[in-house]
C-alpha cells in the first residue's frame, strides 16, 4: 500500500469537494431558477467533461497552463503559481472535471423547490439571503451532500487528467489510481489489489451515501 498516494488521493478528493461546493451551489441555484437565454449553453458546457476523454481535457490543460504558454507564464510570474505537475494544478483540474458531478444533483435539488415556497418566504418578510439560508439550502441539503459525495468518489477514481496534468510525483501528485497503475506495471499485483480494494470501498461508501440521501429526500416529499 502506498500510504502517500492514499493521503494525496483523500486530500485531493476532500479538498475538491469542499472548495468546489460554494461556487457550485451558486451556479446550480442560478441554473435552477434563471430564465436566461445563456442557460442551455452553460448547461451544455458543464456536461462536456462527462463526454470528453479525460486525456483531451488533460491535454488542453497542459498546453494552456504549462510554463511555455502565456497563461502559465503569467501565473508563474505574477502569482508564483505552477499549475502543471503540482498539487495545486491537480486541484484546479479536479474542479473542472467535477463540475457536472457537483452541479447536477444540486441543480435538481434547487429545481425541486416549488416557486411558491420561495415566494411564501418573501411574502413572510424574509430577505433573499435569509430565504436562501433558512428555506432553500435546508431543502436542497440532500442535493448538497450528494454532489459532495459524488465529487469525492469521482476524484478518487480519476486517472487520465491526473496523469496528464499532475504527472507521477510521489507524495505530491501520485494518487491511488496512478499508484495502482504503477504497481501493475511493476508486477506487484498484491499491492495493486490492496489499493484497488480501498478505492472500491471508498467509492461504494460514497455512493451508498448518495442513494441513502436520495431515499430520505423522497420520503420527505411524500
Amino acid at each position, binding site marked *: 500500500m502506498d500510504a502517500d498516494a492514499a493521503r494525496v488521493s483523500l486530500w485531493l478528493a476532500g479538498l475538491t469537494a469542499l472548495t468546489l461546493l460554494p461556487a457550485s451551489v451558486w451556479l446550480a441555484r442560478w441554473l435552477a431558477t434563471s430564465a436566461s437565454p445563456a442557460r442551455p449553453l452553460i448547461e451544455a458546457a458543464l456536461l462536456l467533461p462527462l463526454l470528453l476523454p479525460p486525456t483531451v481535457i488533460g491535454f488542453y490543460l497542459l498546453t494552456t497552463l504549462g510554463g511555455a504558454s502565456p497563461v502559465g507564464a503569467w501565473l508563474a510570474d505574477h502569482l508564483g503559481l505552477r499549475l502543471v505537475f503540482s498539487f495545486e494544478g491537480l486541484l484546479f483540474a479536479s474542479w473542472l472535471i467535477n463540475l457536472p458531478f457537483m452541479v447536477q444533483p444540486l441543480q435538481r435539488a434547487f429545481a425541486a423547490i*416549488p416557486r*411558491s*415556497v420561495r*415566494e*411564501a*418566504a*418573501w*411574502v*413572510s*418578510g*424574509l*430577505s433573499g439571503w435569509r430565504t436562501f439560508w*433558512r*428555506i432553500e439550502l*435546508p*431543502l436542497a441539503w440532500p442535493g448538497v451532500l450528494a454532489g459532495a459525495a459524488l465529487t469525492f468518489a469521482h476524484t478518487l477514481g480519476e486517472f487520465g487528467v491526473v496523469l496528464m496534468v499532475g504527472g507521477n510525483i510521489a507524495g505530491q501528485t501520485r494518487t491511488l489510481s496512478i499508484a495502482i497503475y504503477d504497481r501493475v506495471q511493476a508486477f506487484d499485483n498484491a499491492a495493486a489489489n490492496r489499493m484497488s480494494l480501498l478505492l472500491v470501498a471508498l467509492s461504494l461508501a460514497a455512493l451508498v451515501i448518495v442513494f441513502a440521501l436520495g431515499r430520505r429526500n423522497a420520503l*420527505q*416529499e*411524500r
Partner: protein
Amino acid sequence: MLSVEVYQDAPVPLAARFDCKPGEMVALVGPSGSGKSTLLRCIAGLMHPARGRIASGERVWFDGSTRTRLAPQERRVGLVFQHYALFPHLSALRNVALASPRDDADSHAADLLARMGLGQLTSRRPSELSGGQQQRVALARALAREPEVLLLDEPFSAVDQPARHELYRELAELHRGVALPMVLVTHDLHEARRLADRMVIIDGGTTLQQGTPAQVLSQPRNARVAGLVGIQNHFEGVFFHGDDPQWGRLCWGSREGPQLLVRDKHRIEEGALVSWVVPAEFIGVHRSEPGGANVLRARLAEALPLGDIALCRFEIEGLRAAVQLHQTTAQLQRGELVVGEPVFLQFDPAGVHIMPRRALPAPH
C-alpha cells in the same frame, strides 16, 4: 384601505380596478385563467404590472408613473397560497414564527396556532398535518406577519368538502374579528356569496362588475357577467318603450315572443336586442291562473330530485325557452306539481333585469 388599479397588455392582459376597505372581504371571482391570481400576485409584489397604482392607506406599494415598486418584503401582506406553500422542513411553529416580525416570535406563533385550534400540533411538519390543518397553519403564518392586507388565493380548493364548511365558518369568524382589508380569490360562486361583502367579477384580466353578491347576482351588468356568475334563468329578447315612461315591453326570444311588462330605466334603445335575467324568487309558480300581469302558460317538463329540493324545468308555451326553478320535493310528492302537467308562471317586473346584448368595455 387597499386600492388597486393595474393595467398591462402582456403576458397576461390586465385592466382591473377595485378597492377593499378595512374589515371588508372582497371576492375576486372569475373562471380559471381569468387573471384573478395574477392580480393577487401584483398586490403581494410577486410581479409588477406595466401600469397602474397599488396603495395600502397612505403607503404606495406600486406606481407605474413614478416607478415605485416595493418588494414583497416591504409590503406587509399576508398571503395564503392556493396549495399553502408551507416550508416542508419546518414544524408548524417554525413555519409561523419565521413570518413574525416580533421579538417574541415563538410565543406569538404559538398563540396564533392555538387560536386556530392547533395548539397540540405545533411540532408537526406540514406532511404530518391534514389539508385543513395545513390551511390553518398557512393562515396563521399570513397573520403572523401582522399584515396590513390579507390575501387568500383559492384557500379552500385543496380541502375536502366536510373540512371546507368548518373552514368557511372559521374564516367568517376571522373576518368579523380582524379589521383588515381581505381579498379572496375564488372561482366558486357559492364561496364568494357566503363569505364576501363584495364581489369583483373578472374575466380576461378585466374587472367586469363589482358590487354586493346580491347586486351582482340580481343585476348583472351584461350577458357575460350573467354567464360568469352562472345565472340559470338567462334569456334573450327585444325591448320596446311603453306609453307610460316608467314601463317598457320585453318580447321574450323575438319580436313575436310573449310579452312581459318591465321597468323602463331609459338606458336601452327602442327595438334593441337584449339579454335578461330573472332571479328565482321573482317567479311565481301557480296551478291555476293568477290575477295580475306577466302570467305565462308553461308545462313542468322535468323534475330532478336533489334531496329535500328538486330542480324543475318549466317549458314556456310557444317558446323554446325553459325556466329552471328549485321546488320542494314535498310539493311534488303531494301532487301540487306533476311532471307533464300545465302550470302558470308569473314574473314580477321588479326582478326582471335587462342588459344590452354586447358586453360593455371596462372602465379605464
